[in-house]
């Protein structure tokens, strides 16, 4: 029970100035280990959804949840750790691609069902979305070609089935 694992939380917050500062400030102040944090608008214009990936044991998770719950701007916190969720992350990868190696990179991209979104005579920009492990696997292979630049969004998550996080218990 008290071993360290990865937990995913969907945090619905008021879309107000400074709300992210409140959340990230609290997390760093209380020394919680955050693997990723991703925020964006939702189906409701005044609600922002923040997906947090936290590393820790059950106690840490309880603390993160109850401390976040105290923030006035936090409307709802849903634990999305269970298997019944879809996790995705988006990565943009700029990889060195001189003419002689371009073809083999394109092959890899196809195998991974990723996309090439920019082509230059020296480099390609690849777009890849999927679970983190899949992105990691692609990166592992591209490493040998020379990754010039990498941007990742951090995990976003939705539960499977019709019930939204805001209605979960």
């Amino acid at each position, binding site marked *: 029970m008290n071993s360290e694992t990865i937990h995913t939380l969907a945090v619905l917050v008021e879309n107000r*100035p400074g709300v*992210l500062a409140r959340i*990230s400030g609290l997390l760093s102040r209380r020394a919680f280990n955050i693997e990723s944090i991703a*925020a*964006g608008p939702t189906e409701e214009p005044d609600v922002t959804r923040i997906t947090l990936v936290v590393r820790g044991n059950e106690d840490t998770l309880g*603390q993160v949840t109850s401390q976040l*719950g105290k923030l006035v701007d936090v409307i709802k916190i849903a634990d999305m750790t269970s298997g019944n969720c879809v996790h995705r992350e988006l990565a943009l990868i700029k990889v060195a691609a001189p003419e002689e190696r371009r073809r083999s990179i394109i092959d890899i991209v196809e195998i991974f069902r990723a996309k090439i979104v920019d082509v230059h005579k020296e480099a390609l920009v690849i777009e890849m979305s999927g679970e983190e492990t899949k992105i990691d696997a692609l990166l592992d292979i591209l490493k040998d070609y020379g990754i010039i630049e990498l941007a990742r969004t951090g995990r976003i998550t939705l539960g499977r089935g019709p019930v939204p996080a805001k209605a979960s218990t």
Partner: protein
Amino acid sequence: MSAVPEVNVRSGVEERDPATVCQEVPNPSTRMTGAQMVIEALKAEGVEVVFGYPGGAVLPLYDALYDSGLRHILTRHEAGAAHAADGYARATGRVGVCIATSGPGATNLVTGIANAYMDSVPVVAFTGQVALPLLGRDSFQEVDITGITLPITKHNFIVKDLQRLPRTIKEAFYIARTGRPGPVLIDIPKDITQTEGYYRYPKEVSLRGYRPIFEGSIEAVEQAAEEIVRARRPVLFIGGGVTISNTWNSIREIVELTGIPVVSSLMGLGNFPGDDPLFLGMVGMHGTYAANMAVSECDLLLGIGVRFDDRVTGKIDEFAPNAKIIHFDIDPAEIGKNVRVDVPVVGDLRWSLSALLECLKDDDFVACDHRRGRGRLDEWQETVTRWKTERPLTYRQSDPDAECSIKPQYVIEEIYRVTDGNAVVVTDVGQHQMWAAQYYTHKRPRSFITSGGLGTMGYGLPAAIGAQVGRPGEVVFLVSGDGSLLMNCQELVTASEQRLPVKIAVFNNMYLGMVRQWQEFFFGKRYSHSCLNGSADYVKLAEALGCNGLRVTKARDVRAGLERAMSLNGPVVIDFRICPEENVLPMVPAGGSLAKMMGCFPEG
């Protein structure tokens, strides 16, 4: 934080909120400036007094205050205003209000806000801000006070839209005083206070992200009651939550029914009569032998409105090692934060304690128990009573005629006598604070006002002013130190100007005594910068700032000095020349086990 993506925040969301729209029905009779709205809102909240200090960004607000009929007390530093609002709130149970201008005025509030935050005190702080067009440009006296106070407020606001001002004030008061209380700051740009708009104060607050819990799980309460029936060595550990929820009567009733001995945190003192045979005293670093032993030996610890601070628990692994721990608290985040909890009872103490009492009054329980635990807890009560009588708090009396070696503990005992134990005791921070906690027999709730969580030197004098303003008919006695008093001594002027009869005892040991004590014990007596050399004359200081000043140098004169102070009308400072190297004992060294106290035997 810079790594965090910033969301695309749409402006104008607030205006679309239906709650606001229906409130803003134009009504010509309620057109006024933002500054006037603040005054009207304060009146609507029942605010009787505000503590503050003016400046450029709050000029419009002060102009509206001028003939508002609201009582405003001009402190002589914004720190004083924040602490006074805090002291007022603790003494009365109402929300304390303070006002400061932008920039340095606002930053001067910061310590006071942090202090109120640590001890869960309801305070609403208003700060002026530069006008909206100047915001974010490092304008004159601009500071990001909502950013600065983010981690030390329960919530804060910056009002960028006049329409939202009334509702924001309503929400601020609501958030400050409900649930687990705390300070809330409202930052108002100057132009917002100067603009005119329609005023309508909302009757209700609806915040979907803030719904303080009242009731929790009744099963948890029942489980707590069962544990109480089973326990053979139970201890009730009470804290500041009992004060905040006004549930001291429930505590007394629980003890009447069950006979469980009581220990208290610093913040809980006064919630259970200090002279009751079942009261064992304060627990923790400078707790009594009986209280610390009881916690170390108990089989059931009922923590009520406490947060298991490190000054209380000492070494966590050895805290209440043989006990099941039941934790009653309104804040779920407190459960398991510092100690393992076997039975959490989350909810307002007003609910949980009365639910517990109902369980305890149940026939099944009464059948297996007797009033005050007679029979069932006999052995345990005997044990704790023996600890209490065999190792009480003691000190060695000094020669009554010796100069400058009055025992501080004796002064506290004498303050207790001349005030019949009925004073509102306020303290600063240091050794004198601990002596006031230990040697005054605290019998009334809301009558021991001290900076617990933050340990803020300089808190005492302004807090005493706030307490006296809130409880004008009562004796307010400040126990301060020669170090602490100077940290906000400008407020002596406020006390004299307001003719507040605060009694101020300066425990003058010519040291930052608590620092010196740690240096003596843990740093080989290297008194690095803790000696105050006695160069300040507190009598002259008092007189210069419009107060009475007295000096007492011998133990023999302590009583007469105190009686003289009691007979004077205005504020009075009494400079007690106490024994410079007296230590606060017993003591559990930081991080040590409560069962291993130093200096709890009368003869060392």
